[in-house]
């Protein structure tokens, strides 16, 4: 090939590369290349990675029991209604100590409100293009980067505990020093689940019961420093049922908190 041809080829390549990079097409092209799962466990983790694509609405309740190192427990109920892509209502009630650390999260698709039930105040943030950008989420295990976790944006910005169980893609992006152990199948709320244990190198572990149809976490049992730290269990769940849109509105009686 002549010098001039090399030069032209490289110039065309630079222009093409620039277009691919700036438009994000390169990542999309790579994402659509077929990736064969190496094992059944990889197929399960791939399902968890894209669980947010497997449902439209979710409604239900979940109970979280947090165990303190001093033997105390804190029990919360999370009542939730979620409609993709960005509508959410989560009412958090402390069942152990009425009113303490309660809260409500509301997202109407344009703004996210974090309500303090006790003070009757709220904080808000606008939902911008970056808030809802899913392009960073790995689409299969081949895109998972060692030691980097991309949490679904809704779980990042709507900070209720149940959100990481509903948007579960982070669970398939554990540190490379962790080990996944597939313990079998089970049934929760009359739904088929996989039981998966994530074992950290330091001895901590997190066992989750993952809904096979949607990839969301229905039950969670977490051991930290050799002691039970968290028990979470969904107590009822409706998938893809119509949702009352009036839930996704800032409730009356709350005022804007002083910004910190």
């Amino acid at each position: 090939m002549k010098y001039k041809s090399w030069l032209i080829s490289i110039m065309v390549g630079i222009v093409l590369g620039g277009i691919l990079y700036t438009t994000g097409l390169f990542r999309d092209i790579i994402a659509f290349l077929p990736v064969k799962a190496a094992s059944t466990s990889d197929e399960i983790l791939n399902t968890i990675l894209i669980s947010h694509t497997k449902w439209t609405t979710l409604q239900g309740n979940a109970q979280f029991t947090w165990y303190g190192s001093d033997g105390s427990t804190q029990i919360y109920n999370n009542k939730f209604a979620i409609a993709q892509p960005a509508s959410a209502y989560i009412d958090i009630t402390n069942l152990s100590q009425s009113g303490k650390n309660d809260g409500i999260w509301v997202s109407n698709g344009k703004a996210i409100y974090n309500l303090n039930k006790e003070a009757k105040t709220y904080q808000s943030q606008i939902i911008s293009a970056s808030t809802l950008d899913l392009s960073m989420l790995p689409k299969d295990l081949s895109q998972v980067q060692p030691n980097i976790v991309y949490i679904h944006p809704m779980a990042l910005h709507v900070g209720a505990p149940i959100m990481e169980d509903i948007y579960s893609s982070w669970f398939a992006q554990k540190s490379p020093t962790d080990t996944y152990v597939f313990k079998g199948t089970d049934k929760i709320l009359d739904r088929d689940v996989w039981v998966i244990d994530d074992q950290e190198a330091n001895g901590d572990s997190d066992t989750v019961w993952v809904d096979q149809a949607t990839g969301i976490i229905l039950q969670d049992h977490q051991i930290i420093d050799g002691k039970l730290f968290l028990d979470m269990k969904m107590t009822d769940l409706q998938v893809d049922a119509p949702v009352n849109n009036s839930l996704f509105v800032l409730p009356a009686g709350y005022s804007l908190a002083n910004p910190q």
Partner: protein
Amino acid sequence: MSIMVALLTAMILSNVVQAGGPYVISESPLIHYAGGSGYPHTYSSSGCYGSSCLYLAQSETTGWWHWNVNYSNYYQWYAWDPTVGVAAAYYTVWESAGYQWQVTVNQANHHGSWVYIGYSDYPTNPGEFMYTTNECVSGYTCSNLKVFWDQMELTTH
């Protein structure tokens, strides 16, 4: 042959062209912003990035702190989750344009990972601040847990 060279160059360029950085920013020193002003405590552990973290317990007076960084054109943010963390932590990014966003990171779930916090809607900016606090996050365990702050990572546009 020409087409191959062009495609190869395009692929290399697409892979190599990245935002500036990433730059790793130490958790120390944090700068006080508001609330309780007792400086966060140092925690030495192999579970922390570089074997050292800062923390405030949830039981201490709530304070707001920010990282000591001095760049412009901030773009993407990441927070290191030390393997010793179990509390949920708020992070708030204030952009110079007045826009701000908050995220919650459940430190019990992402041990030993950089947690992606998001990117700026205004990538051409004179600066941003990343704030943190030991405030309890509603629905998570709220007692005397340590809220850890470790190294941050950012890219610039």
